[in-house]
């Protein structure tokens, strides 16, 4: 489907909104109590205070992962373990883009914002699924697609809706009309920069990372002024001294078979590789407003498989990093894998929580579920590792080096846990993670920096004769033990949502969208949406009724059946 249309913004809903306002006024004058279905909701402003309180907000769903900690724990219990078996579709909205859906629906006072592949944004009435407006981004000619034409959603702040695009732009839209207020280039798309993430809005800033870890870019997290779009600060994820401490073991203590002598010789000869070292920041950071810090994880070094060309630990790739929110200055980091040659990078977003520290006492922690198959729990103060969980999926031949003809290792290069955000249940100290089991061979072949093209330094190939599957795993993050796990017929990619109703939701490639009992993993409800449910679910309450909503559009990366639907569910 060609996306090079002429439209930059489409004010389709303006007339409708005006009619709705008139209808509302008429209803009020008449004193009619019902007739809600006749009116369309109107977009309303979002304040910083609302964002500050998002974790306790059982009406809206204001952020990509629920709240600044990114717990994906929704504090409403109207839908719960006792009644979820009666969950059924309330409405379906069919978008005009039939392709991968990774969007986290955002809901503000009864208005829902969702995005599609190729960067369309819809505002919908969250009660009925009726369209309010649609924005169709006009993609620039130079747009790179590493892993599908995806988009993970918008950020909302004030009277604006913010979108990051595949041609590396940050676009601010008028929340009421979908019209463009401003658009800024984030970085040069011809160099391989691109965006699939949802931005984060906090304290007058819009935070955006970048794709491009497969393109020899220099990764970053940028902060833009939410009103003007000017860049306030940039944190480069690959420092000028990226060599680190020449670590031979990964965070779990396993030997990575590095040839340190050869690397040091290459480093002396060719210098630091930081300029084309990769290190994208694929998704939203967590924010701790009490310490004024942002936490995020950094993607893989470039080129993915060829380590010889980039000697050193390749800081801060495959790391947890914390920076000051006002200045973007470095505070601390922890590298999960130094000098990664398997693309087992850190992509699933961080979660701030309270957990048992090294001494057992309650401690502020930062958690991340890795492609390696481990859930890592780090100290939020200094980024040090507290514990890592049991493996959530099979691991075999870990850290075997890639070869020309291909070396088999589990997990495959998609994980473990890919970009899928985890959910958490703080009361049960459980984290819920979507895992993939995809046996692959890792091939290495050296090539020089390719000027903005895909630069893997080899190839990953799925082994067609071996079975692939997925696993939804609950981990007790106080102990690192797997509490329960449920196997799924296909590898899992998407996201989870846990609620105060004692349930956790996750979708699958075959179209199943399920509710599990959070404590036991028992499947309490299932619905087949007709296309891959490979997006993170959201929840919200309108007029006292709780909904669960999810995108069913499939996913390019695991090639699940494509669709175009947003489906909202209620219990009646």
């Amino acid at each position, binding site marked *: *489907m*060609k*996306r*090079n249309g002429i439209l930059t913004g489409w004010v389709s809903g303006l007339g409708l909104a005006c009619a709705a306002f008139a209808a509302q006024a008429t209803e009020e004058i008449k004193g009619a109590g019902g007739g809600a279905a006749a009116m369309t909701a109107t977009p309303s402003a979002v304040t910083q205070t609302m964002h500050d309180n998002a974790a306790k907000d059982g009406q809206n769903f204001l952020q990509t992962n629920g709240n600044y900690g990114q717990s994906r724990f929704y504090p409403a219990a109207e839908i719960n373990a006792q009644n979820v078996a009666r969950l059924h579709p309330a409405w379906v909205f069919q978008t005009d883009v039939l*392709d991968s859906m990774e969007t986290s629906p955002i809901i503000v006072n009864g208005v829902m914002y969702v995005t599609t592949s*190729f960067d369309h944004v819809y505002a919908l009435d969250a009660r009925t699924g009726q369209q309010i407006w649609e924005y169709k981004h006009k*993609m*620039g*000619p*130079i*747009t*790179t*697609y*590493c*892993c*599908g*034409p995806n988009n993970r959603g918008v950020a909302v702040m004030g009277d604006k809706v913010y979108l990051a695009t*595949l*041609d590396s732009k940050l676009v601010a839209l008028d929340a009421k009309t979908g019209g463009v207020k401003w658009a800024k280039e984030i970085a040069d798309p011809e160099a391989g920069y691109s965006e699939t993430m949802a931005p984060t809005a906090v304290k007058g800033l819009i935070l955006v990372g970048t794709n491009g870890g497969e393109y020899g870019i220099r990764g970053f997290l940028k902060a833009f002024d939410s009103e003007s779009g000017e860049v306030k600060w940039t944190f480069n994820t690959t420092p000028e001294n990226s060599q680190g401490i020449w670590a031979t073991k990964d965070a779990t203590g396993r030997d990575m078979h590095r040839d340190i002598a050869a690397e040091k010789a290459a480093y002396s000869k060719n210098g630091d590789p930081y300029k084309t070292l990769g290190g994208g920041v694929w998704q939203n950071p967590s924010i701790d407003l009490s310490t004024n810090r942002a936490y995020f994880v950094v993607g893989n070094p470039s080129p993915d498989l060829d380590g010889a060309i980039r000697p050193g630990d390749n800081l801060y790739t495959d790391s947890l990093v914390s920076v000051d929110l006002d200045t973007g200055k470095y505070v601390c980091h922890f590298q999960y894998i130094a000098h990664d040659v398997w693309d087992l990078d850190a992509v699933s977003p961080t979660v701030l929580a309270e957990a048992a520290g090294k001494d057992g006492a309650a401690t502020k922690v930062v958690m991340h579920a890795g492609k390696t198959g481990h859930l890592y729990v780090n100290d939020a103060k200094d980024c040090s590792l507290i514990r890592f969980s049991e493996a959530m999926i099979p691991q075999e031949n870990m850290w075997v080096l890639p070869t020309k003809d*291909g070396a088999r290792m589990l997990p495959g290069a998609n994980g473990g846990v890919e970009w899928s955000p985890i959910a958490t249940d703080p009361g049960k100290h459980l984290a819920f993670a979507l895992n993939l089991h995809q046996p692959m061979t890792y*091939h290495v*072949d050296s*090539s*020089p920096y*390719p*000027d903005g*093209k*895909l*630069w*893997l*330094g*080899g*190839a*990953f*190939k*799925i*082994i*067609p004769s071996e079975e692939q599957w997925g696993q939804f795993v609950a981990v007790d993050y106080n102990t690192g033990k797997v509490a329960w796990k449920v196997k799924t017929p296909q590898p899992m990619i998407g996201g989870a949502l846990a609620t105060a109703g004692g349930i956790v939701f996750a979708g699958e490639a075959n179209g199943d969208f399920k509710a599990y009992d959070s404590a036991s993993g028992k499947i309490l409800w299932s619905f087949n949406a007709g296309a891959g449910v490979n997006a993170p679910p959201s929840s919200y309450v309108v007029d006292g009724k709780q909904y669960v909503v999810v995108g069913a559009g499939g996913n*390019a*990366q695991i*090639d699940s059946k*494509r669709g175009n639907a947003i489906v909202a569910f209620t219990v009646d």
Partner: protein
Amino acid sequence: MRRGWMALAAMGLASGAARADDIAQKAAVCTACHGETGVPIDKAIPVLWGQNEGYIYIELRDMKKGARKNDQMSQVVNELSRDDMLALAAYFAAKPWTNLNQPRAASAEQTQFDSMARSAGCVGCHQEGYKGAGTQPRLAGQSVAYLEKTMLDFRSGARTNNAWMKDLLQTYSPADILEMARVLAGL
């Protein structure tokens, strides 16, 4: 194939200015081989009409700077500025895709192709339906001879401007590649 194109090249690019109304004139150089109605004059020459804008630009850029070597194209691209390349890319991308009426593959071949393609994750860049987008080319319905030559050239290293394509295609046999070309051409 070479009849008259050199003369057309000299004629079309004499002015050097990248004004919009010059584009049709500049494009005359292209249509001499790639076809005045979109059908190339030779089976080995790829369909250009309806190809993705970013991809056309990148290939012109790469051929000019020598990242990709192509004897027939080298004279043409030397005269093109970056603005010319972007304008020509937009011009041809706006045309409807040319249907070469190549036969559709048998369903058994299609199934085998799907399995091979899943292994390498082709749709991740070339998109569902293999129509590509942006800087990733459309493969669906491209000339089978051009697809075969291109994939084999990536595999052998003769085509030098995408190391990733080389690595990926080296994991397939030439026979696999011929089959993939047939299926893609028939889409």
